[in-house]
């Protein structure tokens, strides 16, 4: 996803001279080409994320389109007040890019995990939240972000995520993408868990279920229409995210369901509300948290009453 992001950023920045990349001292083996081609449109701000965010706000007031970049917690939590006051309160055209969604930085420990970002950022007025699910969506989301005027948070995985889309889908901020239609179960995946959603969809199909798969690449504004449509087309709905079960996609969908008095089988599948006392790579950390494809499939089958 990082590669798709930086390539799209570079291509767009070549055309739009207002774009300015600011990094919190990260980007080794990611930004070199950008720096070489657009040295004056790049700034390493040092390990000073609060200042980076405030400076970006100041630049935006002077007409620049700053893109600030760091690992999810440092791009969204260390500088949360600057995002709230300087960017969102003033509704400025700053783009916040967090790399390392979920357990992307698995063995680094919880300081580097991105598990609460959507939850906290979803509370901020004026902020659009984009969570592309594969490199194809990342390219489209980056284009859409740079085209849109206003504050945007772009949540990225790290590297090596496979493409889930077979063709280039139509991408619109605030519109979920229907990848497959089905009659029994709806699976809504986001960000790094689009891949998992796709794997789980295939497993459920092997169990004889007809599955509707949606990529929810925008968490805010949320596509309520596609959610409600899913509750009419299928009788069960599951959200999959590499994020705390509190505050993220699952919570957002739950809000839509309860406020519309929809009666479906529903479960939020994500990282349980705890700090994990385990060390391991991304897939290991997922498994420890009940989030392997097989574990999630079992969880869903249990919710459907197909397993004890």
């Amino acid at each position: 996803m990082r590669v798709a992001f930086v390539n799209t950023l570079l291509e767009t920045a070549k055309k739009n001279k207002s774009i300015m990349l600011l990094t919190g001292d990260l980007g080794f083996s990611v930004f070199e080409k950008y720096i070489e081609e657009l040295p004056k449109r790049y700034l390493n701000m040092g390990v000073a994320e609060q200042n980076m965010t405030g400076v970006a706000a100041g630049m935006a007031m002077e007409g620049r389109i700053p893109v600030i970049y760091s690992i999810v917690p440092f791009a969204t939590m260390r500088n949360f007040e600057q995002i709230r006051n300087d960017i969102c309160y003033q509704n400025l055209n700053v783009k916040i890019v967090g790399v390392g969604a979920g357990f992307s930085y698995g063995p680094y420990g919880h300081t580097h995990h991105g598990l609460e970002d959507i939850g906290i950022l979803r509370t901020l007025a004026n902020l659009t939240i984009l969570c592309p699910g594969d490199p194809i969506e990342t390219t489209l989301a980056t284009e859409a972000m740079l085209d849109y005027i206003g504050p945007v948070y772009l949540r990225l995985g790290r590297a090596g995520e496979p493409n889930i889309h077979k063709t280039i889908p139509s991408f619109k901020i605030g519109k979920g993408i229907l990848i497959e239609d089905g009659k029994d179960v709806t699976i809504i995946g986001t960000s790094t868990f689009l891949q998992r959603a796709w794997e789980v969809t295939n497993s459920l199909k092997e169990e004889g279920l007809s599955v509707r798969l949606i990529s929810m690449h925008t968490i805010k504004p949320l596509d309520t229409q596609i959610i409600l449509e899913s509750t009419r087309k299928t009788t069960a709905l599951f959200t999959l995210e590499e994020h705390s079960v509190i505050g993220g996609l699952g919570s957002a969908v739950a809000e839509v369901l309860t406020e519309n008095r929809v009666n479906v089988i529903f479960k939020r599948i994500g990282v349980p509300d705890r700090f994990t006392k385990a060390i391991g790579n991304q897939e290991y950390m997922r498994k420890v948290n009940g989030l392997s494809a097989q574990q999630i499939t079992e969880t869903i089958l249990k919710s459907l009453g197909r397993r004890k």
Partner: protein
Amino acid sequence: MLNSKELESLKKLAKVAREDIIRMSLHAKSAHMGGSLSCVEILVALYFKIMNIFPKEPENQERDRLIFSKAHDAKALYATLAERGFFGRKILEGYELDGGRLPGHTTRHCVPGVEVSAGALGHGLSMAAGMAYVGKQDNRKFRVFTILSDGECDEGSTWEAILFAGHHGLDNLVAIVDYNKLQGFGFTKDVLDLEPFAAKWLSFGWEVKEINGHNFKEIVGILSKLPLKIGKPSVIIAHTIKGLGGVPIYMNKVSSQYRPPSEKEAKEAIKKLKKG
């Protein structure tokens, strides 16, 4: 420099601003009278003598920008902007009141001339630095001024911004610290000592001058010589007195941050201002 006529005129303007601050504090029963009073001369000097501004075209791209980082003392900014003709004085009467246009801490463009939303401490210098960076990169002539409180120099983010501006040699950036030596709940020297304050800025790559922040000759004198050094951001450490020209019993006391004047205290303070 200032001739005596100009000096008298600035002193008169400062008196009017002080009166406005006292009235706003009284009507809204509002806190932060002391810190508003301590930066009056700085603001009056900037808006009436130093800054290149366009009160009738507040968005003019050539204007010097003022980022009022110590936004809790917004009364002082509002009073100065109204006097300078950015908006009608009647608006001051709605300060912090239901349906009014002037919040206790500034909101960007709440009235013409207010550049940023601020109020959480330690944000202003970064925004000012971002503006100054663009100004320098684009060879623009405008300067960016920012007024900081001493209390907000406790914030780590302020020092991140100081490091950044020094590193990039933003000589179109001017920070003025309203060093009234009192913060929220005590004297700065007792709470979190900033000293040696000037040396800290200097070691971060800034050019520093210390002045009496109530003396127009000193303020205008130094702000007429910007940048203090080519290739470096400038900081003016303005030694001031919290609550000066307000209610005597709160002057240079923690209470000046919290106590609005009573009707009687306000009356007496304004009477004294008019006399003196």
